[in-house]
């Protein structure tokens, strides 16, 4: 993973645990060398996720299976007002931002535990896409599409049986 902005060790540890549990791969984190300023859109006061994603896929180290950029800034894609994260289906890279996951943004009290939980969910969800999963209709499945933080809170940090089976089938191709 590439982190742009500081993330606490306890958060990184939890993410590392998730990756091992769901995907069976270890996590390596490196600081980001990107100048985010060049992706900033002053009219929208947001950062262009498509451009960042492209830059990140060029940063990928040869031994990495998937690379996810961890952001703290507000990201968007041109057609949508905001996104939580984005990855390319079956692609090698994705990005996820903490920005829109914070309670404070919605006038609620700060809650760091909840924030970390949401962040982990978005990361696992985007990695699911990177490993070829599409959205799932099971309301508690991590692969269900979420456009609000409340949606995120409703789903489990886990794949439903159907998605898990599909994921394992796809993962086995990487293990050989």
């Amino acid at each position, binding site marked *: 993973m590439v982190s742009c902005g500081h993330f606490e060790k306890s958060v990184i540890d939890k993410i590392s645990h998730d990756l091992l549990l769901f995907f069976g791969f270890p996590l390596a984190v490196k600081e980001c060398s990107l100048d985010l300023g060049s992706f900033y859109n002053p009219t929208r006061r947001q950062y262009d996720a*498509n451009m960042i994603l492209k830059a990140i896929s060029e940063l990928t180290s040869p031994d990495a299976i998937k690379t996810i950029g961890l952001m703290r800034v507000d990201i*968007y*894609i*041109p*057609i*949508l*007002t*905001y*996104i939580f994260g*984005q990855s*390319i*289906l079956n692609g090698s890279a994705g990005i996820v931002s903490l920005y829109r996951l914070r309670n404070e943004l919605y006038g609620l009290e700060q809650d760091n535990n909840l924030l970390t939980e949401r962040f982990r969910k978005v990361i696992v969800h985007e990695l699911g*896409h990177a490993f070829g999963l*599409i*959205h799932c209709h099971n309301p508690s499945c991590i692969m269900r*599409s979420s*456009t*609000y933080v409340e949606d995120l809170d409703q789903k489990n940090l886990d794949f439903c049986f159907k998605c898990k089976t599909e994921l394992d089938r796809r993962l086995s191709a990487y293990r050989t």
Partner: protein
Amino acid sequence: MAEKKVSILVVDDEESVRDSLYNWFIDDGYDVECAENAKQALIMLEARDFDIILADIKMPGMDGMEMHRRIKTLNKEPIFIIMTAFASVDTAVQALKNGAYDYVTKPFDPDDLSHLIRNAASHITLREENKSLKERITTLEDVDDLIGESEGMKQVLREVESVAQSNSSVIITGESGTGKELIARAIHSNSPRKYFPLITVHCGALTESLLESELFGHEKGAFTGATFNRKGRFEMADGGTIFLDEIGTISPKMQIELLRVLETRTFVRVGGNKEITSDFRVICATNRDLKSMVKNGIFREDLYYRLNVVNIRIPPLRERVEDIPLLVNHFIRKYCKSMSRDLISVEPAALNHLQKLEYPGNVRELENMIERAIVIGNGKEIKLRDLPMGREVMSSSIESLDDLEKKHIASMLDKYNWNISRASKALNVDRATLYNKIKKYDLKKSDR
């Protein structure tokens, strides 16, 4: 829905927009393709069909509107959704009038986009299910009572035809008695929603709290008298159309609630806490001048614009005098049939007289006159003497029992300021009877 993937064609000249939408829809499991201009899209459409087309309205070369027109000539009926920059919303509204399903303003909220596509997709499923039932609509259905050869009425019917296919909100304006409910029914029964209910709410006849539970439903125990759970009208209209008659009478509080429901399509029953989602189309009617109510701060501007995507104005009868003979014949057929009588004719002098009256009560007034003339006449021909001679005669000398009842009820309602409980007590009838009478005589709470 997993059996057959819903297919989407994205048409936009901007590469970043195409890519973003492509990725978004692919993640959602749709079958997606992109075209960078209208010409390319039309070529692709010759090779295969798409369920949904999402097209930018402004493109170099052929624009989205023109493309939509061409697609219609190809005899294909994909769901057409317009994407627009804020500046071209007017054109988007025009597109809705031409039968586009909906429009979105760039950039859109992720949640709006997923709702929009999900609704469109469920429409497609519905359409598939009904394919065997559904013959292509070539003529308007259920418009029997909409009689008229006048230019004004033809215009109304043309508008009904074009707006029926889209999903946009419609306001029907016209004086009382012009047949606003008939127009609402015609729109519904010629729309893709016709296999689902048309739910009518007469907003003017209900108090604020009654209207609230009528629209949103209530949970058992929500208020005294709520002895069981009840579905609201919005819930019942799921998949279909809700017709809000006398929209100009609703209170400021209801205006806010209505706006919220129209924006989110979700609501909570009175006394409940579960969010309920419903997919409905809204048609409103009013005989008031909403625009000046907005100007005077009595009606919310944001709600007005939500509702007023398409405005159909029904001309009063005095503006279409040439339709009177047709209408007279229509009502004669209608009432002779229902009274099991032989068809009767109209004496020329009587018809001539009918074309000179004022009709503040419009078509309904004419209809009542014909019904009455058939009852009191000789059974062969409607004669001049069977008709009221003018305003004064109408109101004084030959008042029917019904007219007296109507007047009395109206005065009691006004006396008790439309408090239904108190008025029904004073009239010594139960509330249901009073509501029925209000409906029968089309009584309205008068403007202060």
